[in-house]
């Protein structure tokens, strides 16, 4: 393993084509290895054809001890992922009642949930939950129930915040302004992130996250696994992520994972929208 503290320069990579028009039908579909022209596996800053920065990858930046602690949290969270069909790569369907009639609520199909249960797929959300309708953003129940788990994630999140402020100052400033406007309770320590979402053993379908627009989310994978490259179809690129890596990207673009072998947890930190409502 490389020295995670050493300075490693970012290589600028400029992409040539934008495939946005061809990706509109991909929501909920699973990524395939043919959906990428290029895999990025180095310290790099990725620019769109218009030279706008769309992602930045930092390899081996997280201390192995912090990785271990974060992965433990990933193994501890125990929420069934039945409310994010797009992430799973399925669709939300009307529930069927026991008497065979159609229910009035939408839910992820039981067959799909069985597959996820076999994989021991779970998730957990710390920090702010997006407000809905007239309801303001609030703290997630898991944050108040297990603050010690969030504390175990503190070091990687603060490291990500430092990298974010240093290498991507423009989106960082926008995000920081948003979290500073909101209640300090809805902020993860003194970082520019409001929420930390950890998800375990999920091979995700293409989805958009619906967070604060115009900023970046950060993704940090943990565990022991092979595969699970993150594909961004709009640019036909994939990021080969390993434990210790830190990826900043625009989660409002479609993104999803390729299949993987092993145990994997992903920590995603972001600033939710409508935070200061």
């Amino acid at each position, binding site marked *: 393993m490389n020295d995670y503290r050493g300075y490693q320069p970012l290589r600028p990579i400029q992409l040539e084509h*934008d*495939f946005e028009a061809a990706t509109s*039908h991909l929501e909920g579909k699973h990524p*395939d290895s043919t959906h990428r022209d290029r895999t990025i596996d180095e310290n790099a800053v990725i620019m769109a054809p*218009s*030279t706008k920065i769309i992602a930045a990858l930092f390899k081996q930046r997280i201390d192995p001890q912090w990785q271990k602690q974060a992965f433990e949290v990933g193994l501890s969270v125990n929420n069934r992922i039945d409310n994010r069909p797009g992430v799973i790569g*399925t669709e939300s369907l009307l529930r069927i009642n026991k*008497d065979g*009639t159609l229910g009035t609520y939408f839910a992820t*199909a039981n067959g799909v949930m069985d597959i996820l249960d076999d994989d021991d797929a779970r998730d957990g959300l710390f920090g702010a939950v997006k407000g809905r309708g007239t309801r303001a953003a609030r703290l997630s129940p898991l944050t108040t129930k297990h603050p010690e788990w969030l504390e175990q994630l503190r070091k990687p999140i603060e490291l990500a915040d430092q990298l974010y402020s240093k290498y991507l100052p423009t989106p960082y400033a926008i995000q920081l302004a948003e979290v500073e406007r909101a209640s300090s309770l809805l902020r993860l320590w003194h970082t520019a992130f409001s929420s930390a979402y950890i998800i375990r053993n999920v091979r995700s379908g293409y989805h958009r996250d619906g967070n604060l627009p115009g900023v970046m989310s950060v993704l940090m994978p943990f565990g022991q696994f092979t595969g699970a490259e993150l594909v961004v179809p709009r640019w036909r690129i994939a990021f080969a992520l390993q434990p210790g890596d830190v990826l900043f990207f625009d989660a409002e673009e479609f993104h999803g994972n390729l299949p993987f072998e092993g145990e994997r947890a992903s920590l995603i930190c972001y600033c939710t929208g409508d935070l200061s409502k």
Partner: protein
Amino acid sequence: MTETVIQIRVDGTAEIYQGGRQHLRVLGDDGEPRWHKRTSQGLRPVGNHRARRLERIYAHRENVKAFRRRPRLPAEVVAAEAKSAYIVELEQRAFDWIARGHEANIQLGRVFLQLKDIIEYGDWEAYFAEKFETRGIPLRTGQHYMQLAKDADAVSANVELFPEATDPKAQAINRATEQASEAVSNADPQSSVHQASESAVPGAEKLEDGPRTHRLAIRMMQKQWSRISTLWSSEHRGLGEAAVTDCLMEVCDRCGIASIDPQEGQTRI
């Protein structure tokens, strides 16, 4: 620090830490070494006895642990770092503006293409000269923008670049979703809420004209969305559903959209 450590600096001077004190070895004008100790009043010469002991350590420095102290950055280096950081910031600003410009060029190219389709054949160049060259965009530049737009749209619209995933996990989830979807379409559409007034018998015959749920996706402004969300979570939801259905039926009638009569199997408007 109780350990004795030594550093030979690049300028040839040496420093030894011993007993928690820093000693510096510098060469005097006569070429002889002089030893100084750092005190609260600055550097002071050490006594002869101490100087001889330090010189002995220096002479056998291979036996002493070496250390390397990070040099303090001179002002020039600090200024150079600040300068390079400022250059990076300015470059970032420049990239942002270029990005806007490039996107704008492609959009402008698309508009030119649409205009060219509308303007009568043979009149395009004269039209362009009259309207746009006076605004500082020569015809050649306009043609370049149109080509950029064509290239961008031609590459990006190829849906075949993204086939279905074929790995077992994706296929298993797709299969499970399809089965569930089929089960939903075959299920009795009468929801338990709607059945309340009727005799709800499990497995009863499916009514063709029974209530169904339509999941509409309607774009609207944020304020409208908030109000409707409040309505939907209130006890007036049924009223809202009925009003929306009636309104959409009116639109169907206005647009001449026919419906299939389930009793007769005929089309009626």
